[in-house]
C-alpha cells in the first residue's frame, strides 16, 4: 500500500509542484538576496540617521563640485542600468555577441562610477577626512558614516562588475543562459536603486 509512484526522466515541471512565484529558483534566490541586502543597507542607513539625529551640530561639508560629481556618478549608474537592460533585450533575441557588448559597456560604466567615486574619496582624504576625523573640527561621525555607507556601496559596485564579467565570459562561451544575464541585471539594478537613496541622503543632505 505504501508503494510510491515511480517514474524517471521526466522534467522538473511534470514532477514538481509549481512555485508560487512561477520563476526559476535562481531568480528567486537573487530576489531573496536583494531583500536581505536591502535590510543590510537599511540598517546602516538607520545607524546614520540615528547618529545624525543625535548630533546637534552636524557637519555639512559638500561643495557644489562634489554634488556635480555626484550627479555625474548618478547619471553613469542610471545609464548603466539601461545598458544592462539592453544586454537582456539582446540576449532574449538570441544575439549573444550584442548582449555581451552591452554587458561590457555596463562594466565600463560601473568602473567609471567606481573611478569617480574613488577620486571623490581621495579628494576628501587629502582634505583630512578620515573614518575618525573631521578636518572642520565638527563631529567626527560624518566621516565614519560617509565612508562606511559609500564604501559598502562601492564594494557592491565592484562585486557587481566582477559578477557581470564572469557572466559575460561564460555567456559568450554558451555555458550560461539568458536567465543568468537577467539575474546579474537584477543585482545591478538593485545597486543602482541603493544609490538612489545614498545620493540624496548622504550627498544632498550634506551639501553646504
Amino acid at each position, binding site marked *: 500500500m505504501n508503494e510510491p509512484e515511480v517514474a524517471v526522466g521526466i522534467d522538473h515541471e511534470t514532477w514538481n509542484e509549481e512555485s508560487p512565484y512561477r*520563476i526559476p529558483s535562481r531568480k528567486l534566490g537573487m530576489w531573496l538576496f536583494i531583500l536581505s541586502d536591502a*535590510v543590510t543597507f537599511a540598517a546602516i542607513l*538607520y545607524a546614520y540617521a*540615528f547618529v545624525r539625529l543625535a548630533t546637534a551640530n552636524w557637519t555639512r561639508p559638500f561643495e557644489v563640485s562634489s554634488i556635480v560629481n555626484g550627479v555625474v556618478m548618478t547619471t553613469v549608474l542610471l545609464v548603466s542600468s539601461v545598458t544592462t537592460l*539592453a544586454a537582456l*533585450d539582446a540576449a532574449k533575441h538570441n544575439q549573444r555577441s550584442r548582449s555581451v557588448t552591452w554587458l561590457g559597456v555596463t562594466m565600463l560604466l560601473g568602473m567609471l562610477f567606481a573611478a569617480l567615486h574613488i577620486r571623490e574619496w581621495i579628494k576628501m582624504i587629502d582634505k583630512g577626512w578620515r573614518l575618525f576625523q573631521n578636518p572642520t573640527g565638527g563631529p567626527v561621525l560624518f566621516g565614519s558614516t560617509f565612508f562606511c555607507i559609500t564604501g559598502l556601496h562601492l564594494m557592491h559596485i565592484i562585486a557587481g562588475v566582477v559578477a557581470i564579467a564572469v557572466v559575460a565570459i561564460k555567456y559568450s562561451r554558451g555555458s550560461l543562459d539568458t536567465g543568468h544575464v537577467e539575474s546579474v541585471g537584477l543585482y545591478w539594478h538593485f545597486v543602482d*536603486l541603493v544609490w538612489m537613496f545614498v545620493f540624496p*541622503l548622504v550627498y*544632498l543632505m550634506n551639501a553646504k
Partner: protein
Amino acid sequence: MDNTGTSRVLGMKANLLLCFVLLCIVGIEVFLTYRHLSTETLLAFLLVLAFFEAAIAVTYFMHLKYESPNLAWSLIPALIFVLFMMGNMLPDAMRVLNLRVIHW
C-alpha cells in the same frame, strides 16, 4: 514569462524614457537641495522622491511588474515592515540628543 524563464521587460525606448525621468527626478532633488529648505522639509522631499525612483526601478528595470504578483506581495510588504520597525530606534536618537551630557 517566455521560454527562457526570464520575464517580459519594456522596450528599449521606454527604458530610455524612464532613465530620463529618473534623471529629471535627480535634477529636482539637486534643485531642492539649494532652495534653502529646512532640514526636515528637505529630508521629507528627498525621501519621497527617492522612494518614487526606487518604485520605478523595481517596477520596470527590475521588472517586478511582469512577475507573478505573489512575488511583489511577498517582498515589498516584508521590506516595508522591516524598514518601519527599524524606525522605532529613532526616538532614542532624540533622547540621546536631549539628554546628552554637554561637558561630559
